[in-house]
């Protein structure tokens, strides 16, 4: 098997919607067990980049090589099936794999409870869930199939700080166990610092790599103080200030807020 050197390799990727150039010459290499985050202003083409990597959009220019066996996706707009209950939505990927009903419900229930959903939420339809709950359902649906590669498009944007940290912790655990590779999009610089090995800053119009930051320290050893300090450093970085068009006021090294979010 090619287990050892599975990777998501993006080379000179460009993309346009009609006349609008969205992405220009993006290259990076996501190796197994690593986490790459993409941060950038809204409308900069992050979701587009993710969709190209996952194969939802046809690659027009450049090359995307994905040698992971199994990948899963948590969408920015969750994309739950409105006519299925929480439980069925979470179990969707398992059903697609042909798992028996009893077992997939068992696994889905387990992960739902771990993600802070309650028993009574399991039989609800998406319309009766809060935005944050829907995000957790979508995230659970992606994680429950135990993917090798996880595409996350702002999966925590509607969650409170506590829940966010809890789910981040779950991710960090899986990453440290070497079971997961993550391609992650976020608006929240602090989240990026906490989770990633590499942070790609995407400039806007057209989207291109403005800068890549690398963080060597293993995720598990990053405590809050470290994350705050690193985020503060990032916020003071000229590249970040320029891409996010931060005003002087917000670049006073106040790391308790995400950058553009």
């Amino acid at each position, binding site marked *: 098997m090619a287990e050892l050197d599975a990777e998501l390799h993006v080379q000179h990727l460009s993309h346009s919607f009609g006349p609008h150039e969205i992405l220009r010459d993006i290259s990076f290499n996501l190796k197994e067990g690593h986490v790459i985050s993409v941060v950038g202003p809204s409308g900069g083409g992050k979701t587009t980049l993710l969709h190209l990597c*996952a194969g*939802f959009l046809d690659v027009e220019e450049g090359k995307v090589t994905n040698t992971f066996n199994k*990948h*899963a*996706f948590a*969408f920015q*707009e969750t*994309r739950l*099936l*409105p*006519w*299925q209950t929480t439980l069925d939505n979470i179990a*969707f*990927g398992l*059903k*697609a*794999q*042909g798992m028996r009903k009893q077992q997939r419900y068992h696994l889905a229930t387990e992960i739902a409870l771990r993600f802070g959903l309650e028993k009574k939420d399991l039989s609800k*339809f*998406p*319309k009766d869930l809060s935005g944050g709950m829907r995000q957790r359902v979508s995230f659970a*649906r992606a994680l429950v*199939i135990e993917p090798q590669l996880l595409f996350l498009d702002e999966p925590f944007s509607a969650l409170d700080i506590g829940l966010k940290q809890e789910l981040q912790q779950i991710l960090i655990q899986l990453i440290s166990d070497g079971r997961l590779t993550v391609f992650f999009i976020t608006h929240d610089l602090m989240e990026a610092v906490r989770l990633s090995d590499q942070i790609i800053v995407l400039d806007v119009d057209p989207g291109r790599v403005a800068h890549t930051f690398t963080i060597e320290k293993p995720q598990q050893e990053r405590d809050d103080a470290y994350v705050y300090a690193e985020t503060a450093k990032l916020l003071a970085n000229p590249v970040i200030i320029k891409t996010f068009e931060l005003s002087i006021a917000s670049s006073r090294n106040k790391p308790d807020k995400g950058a553009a979010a």
Partner: protein
Amino acid sequence: MNALLNIIKNFPKYLWSGWGAVSSIFLFITLWEFGFQQYGELVLPSPQSTFHTLWTMLHTDSIMQDVHITVKRAMWGFIISAGLGSFLGMLAGLFVTASIMSRPIITILMGMPPIAWIVLAMIWFGTGDNTVIFTVVVASFPIVFVGALQGTHTLEGDLKDMSDSFKAPLLMKFTDVYFPHIFSYIFPAWIAALGMSWKIVVMAELLSTPDGIGAALAVTRSHLDTAGALALVTIMIGFLLFIEYVFMEPIKREVEQWRN
């Protein structure tokens, strides 16, 4: 099957919630009684005499036969329009040209008064089942067709991408993603078509056949038997209420509970 169980389980609760409807029906009957006292037996027979006529009517064989014939015709018309409309509508929804081309035809079908169809049908089919069923189909088919067309037309790529990302097999994509969406459009159309079938069938019978509730209605008219006419109307309304509230509504509640 789970859905079926749920429907049955919730049925008593649902029935209990029907008291409001019952009281509004009683209110209506009260008004009717007032009308009778105002205008007299010939114009508006009292509820009492109407129900009495109805009671004796229900005990004659011929009326049961008429009801049977009418129900049969309405059902055939409904089944044909539901089947044909669903199939062709879904097909048309898949192709842009087909949906554009079908638009004016549907407008014509919907806009043409059923009474005109009856005349044509009588010329084509004579007087009998076919004329009635044809008229019912022409009136109900476009409703189902439009519903089905919109159902497939509005299928979203987003959910398809989602199911592809989990490598859902084709059958599962159909049962879990496409079908529920399309069905949520087709089902209300079926209900509307069923109501339409029931109305049209009586009208067509009144004008074109020697049997069925519509024909019986024509007889009461020629005898100036207002109580008899009202009794027949009561039978028709009874059927409509029965189908609508005992059959369709519980199913609708079950299959549409995911909607806001």
